[in-house]
């Protein structure tokens, strides 16, 4: 039987406010446990929440960026359950009246088409603390630094039809929230976490199959792998005569398997009700319009502009616009070099490779946009060859400095002196008489290909510094003279 996969995502995005959603404690990541938990975060008796307006503004920015209705009146509710990292015994969240109503974004499907993914709603809520199960000899440690960090939970409709689409949707959300500057986008630190609702149904069937929820996936790659794994499990299960039960499952990336966490029957009755400590949040059109006017250029618009203004390919434009910092970096380099093509190639090529290797974001890059631009300019004015440029780039990355300094001190300048190049060519021709003989014997239309060998030899002899264009011209001239 042919199966159709149906996926909906719930994405938790930590908002980049300085302080928590209902208190003045800092939200910075990585502090000593419980040093960023104030009386409110500890849920001391008598403490009360006060709503952080910055979180509201950020949620509205998101809503506007995904074409959503903004809730003129939104209400915080209490979701009641007991857990040690939930100090009040309830999470303050939104349910019936969220800040962001229905919206949508468009993603590219596997076959290059555009698919519209509808967003059911997005709501504001507080993050919980963390339970630490190691190092406490049969007890658990509780770190409440994260407790009260503002989150926007973005709930999609079940509109995705493959794991690739799910990952593309998540990437697009990531691009939007980082472009808006409302989230640092650091998935490894949990700034964006994803729950995937997955079901399958026979192709053509209208009604949805029973779904399972894969919890807390924190990379795009794992979204794809977890969904693929779960889809296969569901298909095997059904084809073997079983049935899928509604439950929450955990994806184990080490074993590449999903396993049951809790079933629907074990689920809590959260006893939601409006939080009496917080007033309904009421905003007007002027408030929303002011935020709309302050929105930065969004990823889709920037991508289109990159294609049009810089003549980039759809692919390069898509990659570069997916992250605001990266797009800004690109535009800085292009501005300084006047070459969008070279800038794009270096950023998506060498720079991306080294960032990846060192596990750094572009903000943490060891080569600044200005440094890279300095290097590209030397390629453009033919001071160095592209090959040498890679060496210079590695030195920039490892040791810092400017391209000019490195070229100067390491003597990497391109050789444009025809005399010197001719001397090198003559030397190669003298040393490689068998290959020269083959070249002469070859059909004229095959000779072009054979030229590469001699090019390589000349470049080797000149330590890569010879101007490749000149080498090619002179080489052809000299060899053809012999035919």
């Amino acid at each position, binding site marked *: 039987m042919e199966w159709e996969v149906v996926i909906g995502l719930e994405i938790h995005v930590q908002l980049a406010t300085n302080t928590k959603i209902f208190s003045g404690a800092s939200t910075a990541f990585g502090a000593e446990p419980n040093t960023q938990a104030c009386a409110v975060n500890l849920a001391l*008796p*008598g403490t009360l929440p006060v709503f952080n307006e910055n979180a509201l503004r950020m949620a509205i920015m998101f809503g506007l960026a995904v074409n959503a209705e903004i809730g003129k009146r939104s209400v915080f509710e209490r979701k009641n359950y007991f857990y040690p990292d939930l100090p009040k015994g309830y999470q303050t969240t939104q349910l019936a009246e969220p800040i962001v109503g229905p919206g949508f974004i468009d993603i590219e499907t596997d076959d290059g088409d555009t698919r519209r993914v509808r967003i059911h709603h997005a709501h504001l809520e507080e993050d919980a603390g963390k339970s630490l199960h190691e190092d406490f000899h049969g007890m658990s440690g509780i770190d409440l630094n994260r407790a009260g960090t503002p989150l926007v939970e973005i709930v999609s409709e079940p509109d995705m039809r493959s794991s690739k689409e799910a990952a593309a949707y998540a990437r697009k959300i990531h691009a939007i929230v980082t472009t808006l500057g409302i989230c640092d986008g650091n998935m490894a630190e949990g700034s964006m976490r994803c729950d995937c609702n997955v079901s399958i149904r026979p192709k053509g069937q209208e009604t949805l199959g029973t779904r399972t929820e894969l919890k807390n996936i924190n990379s795009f790659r794992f979204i794809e792998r977890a969904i693929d794994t779960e889809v296969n499990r569901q298909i095997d299960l059904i084809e073997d005569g079983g049935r899928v039960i509604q439950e929450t499952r955990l994806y184990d990336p080490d074993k590449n398997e999903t396993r049951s966490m809790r079933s629907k029957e074990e689920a809590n009755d959260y006893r939601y009700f409006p939080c009496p400590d*917080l007033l309904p949040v009421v905003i007007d059109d002027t408030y929303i319009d002011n935020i709309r006017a302050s929105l930065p250029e969004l990823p889709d618009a920037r991508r289109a502009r990159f294609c049009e203004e810089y003549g980039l390919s759809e692919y390069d434009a898509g990659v570069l616009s997916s992250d605001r910092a990266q797009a800004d970096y690109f535009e800085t380099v292009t501005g300084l070099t006047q070459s969008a093509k070279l800038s794009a190639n270096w950023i998506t090529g060498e720079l991306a490779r080294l960032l990846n290797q060192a596990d750094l974001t572009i903000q943490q890059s060891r080569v600044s946009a200005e440094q890279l631009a300095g290097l590209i300019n030397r390629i453009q004015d033919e001071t160095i060859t592209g090959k040498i440029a890679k060496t210079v780039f590695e030195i920039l990355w490892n040791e810092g400095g400017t391209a000019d300094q490195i070229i100067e001190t390491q003597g990497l300048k391109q050789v444009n002196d025809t005399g010197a190049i001719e001397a090198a060519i003559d030397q190669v021709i003298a040393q490689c008489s068998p290959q020269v003989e083959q070249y002469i014997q070859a059909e004229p239309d095959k000779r072009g290909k054979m030229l590469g060998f001699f090019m390589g030899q000349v470049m080797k002899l000149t330590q890569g510094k010879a101007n490749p264009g000149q080498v090619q011209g002179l080489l052809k001239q000299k060899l053809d003279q012999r035919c």
Partner: protein
Amino acid sequence: MFNLTLSELSQALSRGEYSSRELTQAFLDRIQSLDTQYNSFITISEEQAIEQAKAADAIRAAGKATRLTGLPIAHKDLFCTQGIRTSCGSKMLDNFISPYNATLVERLNQAGMVTLGKTNMDEFAMGSSNESSYYGAVKNPWDAGRVPGGSSGGSAAAVAARLIPASTGSDTGGSIRQPAALCGITGLKPTYGRISRYGMIAYASSFDQAGPMTRTAEDAALLLQAMAGEDPLDSTSSTQAVPDYTSTLNDNLSGLRIGLPKEFFAEGTDPLILQRVQEAVAEFEKMGATVKEISLPNTQLSIPSYYILAPAEASSNLSRFDGVRYGHRCDTPKDLEDLYKRTRAEGFGAEVKRRIMVGTYALSEGFYDAYYRKAQQIRRVIQQDFIDALNEVDVIMAPVTPCSAFHLGEKNSDPVSMYMEDIFTLSLNLAGLPGISIPCGFADHLPVGLQVIGNYFAEGKLLNIAHQYQQVTAWHQQAPANLSED
């Protein structure tokens, strides 16, 4: 000095008759020697009190004293006090020392008041007799075999017994007004949001409101002045400006329109209480007020809706008492579930457990619409009844309680009859309106309270009315017999 009001003591301090240090010591000694009879205090904070009194004397010496500087006060034990245990009348918080002050405490400290201790109360403010306290029942100073009312029973008894000239209380369904009535003192429940709730341990957040408990309306005005006002730490605190309450105390009451809701004067209330209230109303007529009968047609729905909504909020508010971060924790828990179950089974008393269960049930899936949502609708209906009534009249007058102080243990086994105690008080909390209870005579030698209900933020008017009544009557000056005098 123990029979003097705050206002009188303030004058004595400024005349230099005694220092705050001496005043404080005298009240501390009196509490130590007499409170064994009443059990109105849970904690006496002698050391801190002496320090505060010394500081107050220094401020006075520097010429910077306010009317409240150096005056003693006691706080209901649900207001967090830095460095002094805040138990909320519960085993759960028997070991809890707050690292911060409630806003209300902070404001009274700033005004220079001296905290002598923390008063007894029904556990987590749930009760109408002060019998649910982990620290034992409080005795009514008018009759030690009877309850002082609740939940601010310790605060009321301590003021009635002249152990303290004033105290703070909190009122969720009548917890200031009912004990004030049963103990013969003055108790004001302000408009919801008038006084910050920050640092007041929550029972039912949309009802809870702090207020002063004093012997006179004038003292209540002095305290409210310092307690009221917007607090950036409490989003539900009102931004409405705080008027000068003392400046309107002597306004003329001629032309005041008084409404008497017929539902509050129906059968079921002690006829002697109704008689005392009618007599009080007659006093106001003498002052030029007019009286008309009004109707609050949904009064009978107030108890059922309150006892859905307040427990619902409480069931959530009390979830934080889980043995993880502070307060009681059971010995050697096997696992997390055991920790929760035994900690809460041991830490909470029967009435608290009852309300947590009722509230949890009312919010449960499948019952929410029938209980919580319906009760919220009724709440709005009751609020509308009051709004309509207060369009016709300036204030509403009524009894505070259907009967005077009852015997200890009398209603303990029957929660519903205990809940009926609040029939005249808790509809105000549903509506968020202010009300004051003032002594208006006796029924069989037990104090009777008159309740005056005003429009939103009409505290000034209520205090004015109460003060004028206290100018022409002496009920508020009556002290229980057999009180040791200084």
